[in-house]
């Protein structure tokens, strides 16, 4: 992609960003509920009910945006593949060819099926044993993005490693970025309530988020390193190609997010868990809530960068 970016390429980057963000939110919200929300709100039925309703709404809207943006992404990619105008790409013969005869198309169809099953599962969200299926479908929807990108284009053992690393990277990203929204809502609800029950909910949630955060960051660093090995390959490519420099921007944003997370873990969480002193715990919860919002904003920008990265030829292709 050259500068200035043409409108077709920009549209593709934009719709990929929307799709990744919506899918990450859906998966992250449901993962948060499973590993954090349920345990945190166990002591407060009121909080649990409110959190449940919020999860259902967020996941439902996230899924709707994911499906709609996925459809637009499919059409724009079909147009790009065949070097066609979007109006031509909307014809049945083009869409059918892409759906039946390309990996991107067959993965898109599979993901649509996953999304529809997830929608059905969410419709019966009141049946608690079904919630593990709901979570599995959401994580599958997020992880399967790996087969649409650079990770899914390799072959042999290398190809398997790349796509597995990509899939885990996507799940870890959704756990972190998507989980920030329900955490912020949970903490915010506690601030309005300001009861000891709310502080307990905030404490348990923050402790568990801390552990999930460590697992997510560790996975992101490990799988990101694998991806960089294959797609960048050298420091010369990292600094000398468009792909490499966009990746550097992603890493810079990741470092900023990480610094917020580290501050939350080392400064705010201990304040929240310490014996109550006047005003210290609500203050810590307020700051944590603000940081969640900032981290989420940074996370969305990172997903925009990811949307851009997928449209650019990997750096390793240019550096032989």
């Amino acid at each position: 992609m050259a500068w200035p970016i043409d409108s077709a390429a920009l549209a593709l980057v934009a719709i990929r960003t929307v799709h990744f963000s919506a899918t990450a939110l859906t998966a992250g919200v449901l993962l948060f509920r499973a590993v954090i929300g349920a345990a945190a709100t166990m002591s407060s039925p009121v909080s649990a009910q409110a959190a449940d309703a919020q999860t259902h709404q967020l996941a439902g809207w996230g899924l709707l945006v994911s499906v709609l943006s996925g459809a637009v992404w499919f059409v724009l990619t079909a147009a790009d593949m065949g070097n066609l105008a979007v109006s031509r790409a909307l014809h049945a013969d083009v869409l059918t060819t892409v759906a039946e005869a390309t990996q991107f198309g067959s993965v898109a169809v599979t993901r649509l099926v996953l999304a529809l099953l997830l929608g059905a599962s969410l419709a019966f969200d009141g049946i608690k044993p079904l919630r593990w299926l709901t979570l599995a479908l959401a994580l599958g929807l997020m992880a399967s993005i790996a087969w649409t990108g650079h990770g899914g284009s390799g072959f042999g053992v290398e190809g398997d490693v790349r796509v597995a690393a990509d899939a885990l990277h996507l799940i870890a990203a959704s756990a972190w970025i998507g989980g920030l929204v329900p955490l912020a809502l949970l903490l915010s609800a506690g601030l309005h309530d300001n009861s000891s029950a709310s502080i307990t909910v905030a404490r348990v949630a923050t402790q568990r988020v801390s552990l999930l955060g460590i697992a997510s960051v560790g996975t992101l660093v490990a799988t990101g390193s694998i991806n960089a090995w294959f797609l960048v390959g050298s420091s010369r490519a990292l600094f000398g190609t468009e792909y490499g420099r966009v990746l550097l921007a992603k890493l810079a944003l990741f470092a900023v997010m990480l610094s917020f997370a580290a501050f939350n873990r080392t400064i705010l969480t201990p304040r929240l868990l310490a014996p109550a002193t006047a005003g210290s715990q609500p203050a810590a919860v307020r700051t944590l809530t603000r940081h969640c919002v900032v981290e989420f904003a940074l996370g969305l920008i990172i997903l925009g960068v990811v949307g851009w990265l997928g449209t650019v030829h990997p750096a390793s292709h240019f550096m032989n």
Partner: protein
Amino acid sequence: MSRFILFATTTMLVVAAPTASFAHAFLDRAEPRVGNTVATAPRELKLWFTQRLEQAFSTVEVTNGSGQRVDTGKPRVNDNEMAISLRVRGPGTYRVNWHVLSVDTHTTEGNFTFTVGK
């Protein structure tokens, strides 16, 4: 929060600045080899690429010195390999023009020549 958004936006604008253009080298190898001379007319052209290809959107044409096509049938794609049958008659220089779509939806194209007999 506005400072961080400014930082992120600035970072993205810096890395989006124009880059030098590099030669795309996605064709890994070919048979007959790129720029090579072969003693006898090949019956088939084979191309190997660095990524898996999509058959529906990948094409190759082979033309003789007069610009006439000497490839026959549709290209056959198997993972990262593309092959097409040839009906090459007589010595001369032949041009290969390829246009491929990889499974990660990137298109690339290129060309090269090979010579028969001289």
